[in-house]
């Protein structure tokens, strides 16, 4: 399998990016898919390990060595089949997955890992380009009806799997477009949204019905969670109409920063900021879009969402962008002997950072100040960390000019009102309580998957949960299941 000495002879080829000055001008993707020869070369570097750690590191357990070899040999269509056997949506993960597989790559112990993500990206783009991705319409219908609440990656994966098993699946989405965080949370420059539309078409052909603008249960008053719904449906109605209900509504409740001045205008959650730009890109009329144009933007939170806020602010033409993180600056490289093959905590510089941003770590926000109800500055202070305990550095307070503050500090939990409406038990972190063995909540025929069950996580974890949950639902309805976990 593969080229036996490929890893010793060939260099890693990374996908190339359009230059920052260019890409900052638009909201299009700027990552260039590998060319055939590059992809083959990348595949040749795979060592076909006796124990492929990547295969375990990948949450959907992509059979990476197999498709690496197929790509190396130029057998792209078969590679796509193997890839699709574990992953419903490689075009999403091939673009926005942080690639825990590559952190687990054996070659990464003492070399640059195989560019697994770029190969995945290559395979699926090749597949669509050649028309190899077609609807897999089930031969028999079971007559069972399933409601999937939420159309993010978990809901979509569940729906697609269940439809392929012959069930009639209806997906309910409170917003006007399908995709959840994929649609609204991820900026277009990281993943263009026609990719979702293309999948939706495939799923519709496979028999999935999509109902947008329908709220299942109700949001609490004052919720900042995005909601375009015109109509609503109650849990009781759903239960009456469907044989099973899958809750895949994500973990949408953002973590707040309750400091003085939080109420000032100009302090927003990232999820109030990012979705509107995607909507505008899609041609929607958005009243009162939050713009960073000409503003001093401070992003609070050093994760991927924060980074997306940086990229979007720069595209708006912000006067300056700063990003603060409470935790200390991670090392440039991890202590590999003690971390590999697990996900390393290390300094990650995203493409958005390269486009212009001042980053700082070990910063706590003390308060926001402003006038006329509008934020003007952030008062912060430095902290030190000792054995997980944070302490403020005396006399380290500072001021930072800020007329737009974006809170990207993660998500606390699913929106509780939905779980409460169904009467679903919750775990200690307020997620829906269900095991990965059967994904069944305490409520009869109500299942939960994705962030709603496991808390905020990666798209790839959502796909895993969706697939596994689909199998559990299929087993629940039919007594057994051919769906892969």
């Amino acid at each position, binding site marked *: 399998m593969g080229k*036996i000495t490929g*890893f010793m002879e060939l260099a890693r080829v990374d996908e190339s990016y359009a230059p920052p000055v260019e890409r900052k001008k638009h909201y299009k993707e700027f990552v260039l898919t590998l060319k055939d020869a590059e992809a083959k070369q990348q595949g040749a570097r795979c*060592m076909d*390990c006796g124990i492929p750690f990547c295969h375990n590191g990948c949450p959907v357990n992509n059979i990476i060595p*197999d498709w690496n070899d197929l790509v190396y040999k130029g057998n792209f269509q078969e590679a796509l*089949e193997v890839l699709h056997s574990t992953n419903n949506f490689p075009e999403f993960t091939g673009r926005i997955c942080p690639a825990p597989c590559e952190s687990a790559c054996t070659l990464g112990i003492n070399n640059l890992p195989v560019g697994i993500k770029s190969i995945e990206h290559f395979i699926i783009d090749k597949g669509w380009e050649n028309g190899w991705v077609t609807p897999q319409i089930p031969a028999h219908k079971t007559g069972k009806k399933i409601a999937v609440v939420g159309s993010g990656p978990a809901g979509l994966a569940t729906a697609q799997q269940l439809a392929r098993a012959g069930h009639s699946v209806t997906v309910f989405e409170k917003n006007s477009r399908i995709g959840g965080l994929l649609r609204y949370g991820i900026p277009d420059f990281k993943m263009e949204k026609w990719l979702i539309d293309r999948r939706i078409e495939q799923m519709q052909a496979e028999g999935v019905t999509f109902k947008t603008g329908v709220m299942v249960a109700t949001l609490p008053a004052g919720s900042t969670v995005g909601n375009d719904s015109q109509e609503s449906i109650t849990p009781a109605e759903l239960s009456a109409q469907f044989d099973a209900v899958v809750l895949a509504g994500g973990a949408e409740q953002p973590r707040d920063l309750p400091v003085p001045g939080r109420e000032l205008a100009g302090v927003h959650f990232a999820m109030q900021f990012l979705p509107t730009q995607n909507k505008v890109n899609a041609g929607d009329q958005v009243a009162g879009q939050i713009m960073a144009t000409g503003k001093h933007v401070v992003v609070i939170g050093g994760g991927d969402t924060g980074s997306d806020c940086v990229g979007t602010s720069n595209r708006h033409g912000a006067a300056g962008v700063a990003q603060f993180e409470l935790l200390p600056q991670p090392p440039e490289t991890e202590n590999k002997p003690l971390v590999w093959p697990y996900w390393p905590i290390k300094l990650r510089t995203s493409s958005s950072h390269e486009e212009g941003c001042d980053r700082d770590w070990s910063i706590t926000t003390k308060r926001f100040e402003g006038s006329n109800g509008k934020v003007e500055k952030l008062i912060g202070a430095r902290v030190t960390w000792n054995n997980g305990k944070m302490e403020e550095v005396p006399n380290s307070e500072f001021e930072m000019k800020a007329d737009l503050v974006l809170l990207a500090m993660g998500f606390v939990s699913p929106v509780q009102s939905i779980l409460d409406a169904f009467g679903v038990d919750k775990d200690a972190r307020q997620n829906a309580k269900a095991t990965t063995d059967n994904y069944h909540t305490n409520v009869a025929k109500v299942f939960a998957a994705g962030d709603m069950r496991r808390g905020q996580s990666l798209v790839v974890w959502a796909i895993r949960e969706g697939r596994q949950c689909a199998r559990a639902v299929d087993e629940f309805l039919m007594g057994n299941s051919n769906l892969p976990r």
Partner: protein
Amino acid sequence: MEKIRNIALFTNEQFKAKELCICYPRAWGAEGVEAALASLSASAVDAITQGFNILIITDRKLDAGHVPIPALLATAAVHEHLVKAGLRTSAGLVVETGSAREVHHFALLAGYGAEAIHPYLALETLAQLSKSVPQIKAEETEYRFIKAICKGLNKVMSKMGISTYQSYCGAQIFEAVGLQSEFVDKYFTGTPTGVEGIGIFEVAEEAVRLHQAAFGADPVLANSLDVGGEYAYRIRGEEHMWTPDSIAKLQHATRANSAGTYKEYAHLINEQTRALKTFRGLFEFNTAGCTPVPIEEVESAKDIVKRFATGAMSLGSISTEAHATLAVAMNRIGGKSNTGEGGEDHLRYRDEMRGKTIGEGESLASRLGGKRVVANFPLQKGDSLRSKIKQVASGRFGVTGEYLASADQIQIKMAQGAKPGEGGQLPGGKVSEYIGQLRYSVPGVGLISPPPHHDIYSIEDLAQLIHDLKNANAQADISVKLVSEVGVGTVAAGVAKAKADHVTISGHDGGTGASPVSSIKHAGTPWELGLAETQQTLVLNKLRGRITVQVDGQMKTGRDVVIGALLGADEFGFATAPLVVEGCIMMRKCHLNTCPVGVATQDPVLREKFSGKPEHVVNYFFFVAEEVREYMAKFGFRTFNELIGRADLLDTKKGIAHWKAKGLDFSRVFYQPNMPAEVSRYRVESQEHGLEAALDHELIDAAQSVLKDVHSAKTAKVEAKITNRNRSVGAMLSHALVKVADPNRGKEERIHVALSGIAGQSFGAFLARGITFSLTGSANDYTGKGLSGGRIIVKPDPACPAVAEENIIVGNTVLYGATEGQAFFRGVAGERFAVRNSGATAVVEGNGDHGCEYMTGGTVVVLGHTGRNFAAGMSGGKAFVYDPGKRFKDHCNMSMVSLAPLQSEAEQNAAAEKRVLHAGQNDEAHLKSLIEAHLAHTGSSVAKRILDNWASERANFVVVFPLEYQRALSEQWTALHNTQAVSA
């Protein structure tokens, strides 16, 4: 197949074929299998009574509605039924099945009666696959597949000691693991099965499930096969003990010395309730009657680790760095590391033998030389690079007297758990110049150890080898490594009676760098079975107290150790786990020399990436020992010895849910022989080796002047009488000499021993450089075994009226495994002369069959007739055969050598292909000097006649020159030539 089906047309109805379909309706389910088998057997009898004499057992007709009975079950059932009916010899069985694809499948079908096998699905698959590989034709793929299967079967048959398919067919040399005895008795009559297990309906259920997977709606299987995961880990496939998480946790734990992470690792390995992977995973401890003791009162970890050894992984299979790391670690904790069968660099032990230990500031490179080490690591004061266990395997690579003298334990590898019946296999790519040097072989030439030890064909022979080795190093324990299989207890008892001090029972799942897949997967049994049988047999025969029992085979945790102890082991061998600690990540690429972490490779670029440290290995063994202590405290045992043999503390785990685990019955494993309390259950005494009777004591006394003052020019001359009761003469004397003098330095002859009489077996075994044995009389088998630089001369008593060159003067298997030295035999030698010679020079006046077999170096001159099969497997060295009758060609095995007339110096210089000269001399001068030496030492009239007529006689010599060796000498010439060109 068409021809066989219609064989009647081709043979004038002499042969008539009848098809017996083994498919039955799917609707009958698993329950239908018994009826289907009964009707199959009945129709076989009917067919024979109707005059058919070829029965074609076929599953061709399987379809969505019909399930095939597994072909093996069907074949065995028909075979057994026909045997019982007395009709088996009236018909041939042809099996046409889609299920046969691997060597093991063919071996099983053959073993249970298939005279011919048609693997139609494999062949059709190849034909289809070949369409995507335009450069290979379909017929070529078929040819290659059949050739590969046949070679695999050859290997399987050879390791079982069976030469022909006819003998193998129906021989049933298998052991069942996990099959119900009632089922086995009926369909696989006579096959041993130790722990019960599944029966016919479970087997059929599996067939039904496979059928379901094939014809069901599983989308993953729509266009592709099941991922399998047998040979490389796949999450949807076969369960493995080593998983990404167990490896990561073990590495992190030992690198950071984190007991907490070790516990996570141990939990992953020990917890097998969901994924059943080993027998011990199905056991639980029966602590009901135990009174726990505080852990502080339990024997210390420091003492427990002394019972641990690392496995026999040769330098060659693993890198210098990986090998030395294990040695340093084991020496730090007082355990033992094992050389494996590749010899050992004297730089790792010679100084230590002389009392010069490693001091401050030294490193691996400072000891072995910078060129030899690419991933250096520092050594601590008092460290030792010496492997305390020196292995002696069938290849005898690097087994010299000095090597043996440096051992604490000498291990005779009868077999290895991962590949019982086979020797080590080192692919050519891993035989670097250094490895070749240590093994006395040719770089780049793969080294495949022969299946048997050529000096062991009986338990008496084994006793002799044990005696030889004990003479070569009286301080070392002699260990015999056996493989778990049914009957190993009896063999172990024989080993104990043959005076071994130590026996290893090796389990089937032991690791191996490179070995045929059929061996890795299908040979040997779990050590739980073999160890229990060994303990029971040894205790019953009151032999247990005389011998240490070690167990190995995927030992990973303290729980494994405790179960091994309860089943009867004193000591424990670990191999894969410490390698993982050193950085192994189970690439399973050991055979390709491409290990990316520098463990199982000789490539310096990759070895540089080796990151293992002795400290990590030390940490690992202490974690294991601490885990053992926790169990001991729970049992209430303060000393480790109290654990040994207490199988009553084991029980079958309750509540195992797996559908195939139901029928298992471990009562035979947990059985304890009812012997009085005074019969020991663990090692308490020493073997009586009878070394005090050795003639060598006399010789050593007489040579004291030399031994006490080796750096002087003193010599000693000794005369003695010898009889055939004097066995292994010379080994002890050589030991005394190499302990004090470097074997490769000093005068040619320092101790001259003139003997007269008939020498016993192993005369001159491991004889060291500087010693000459000149025997007037004759010698027995194994003369010059492992010759290590000494000189052996055997000539007949002048009073003997027999014609010397027409009579045998030395026995069989002379110079086996010789590495250096000279031998002159005035007369004819027996079979297997100079087998596995890797450096000695010998002159003999004729020899029996298989001369120079597997030779990798040295020079042999035969001044008379040779037997058949000369030079079989010969990859190095040269032989000169005097062949005036021009008959030699017919006696030589030509598969690896070429034959040519003797060339003069001028001819050799003028040869088109340039090569470095063998032994640094041109052939004619070399040969002539050897015959002259023969004449000088033995007064041979044959030598004299040839030399007197050299001008004409020289044309009667044939030069036997191995092809691999020719290639290597050419490469050396090119390398030398290029260097000179560059420097000029």
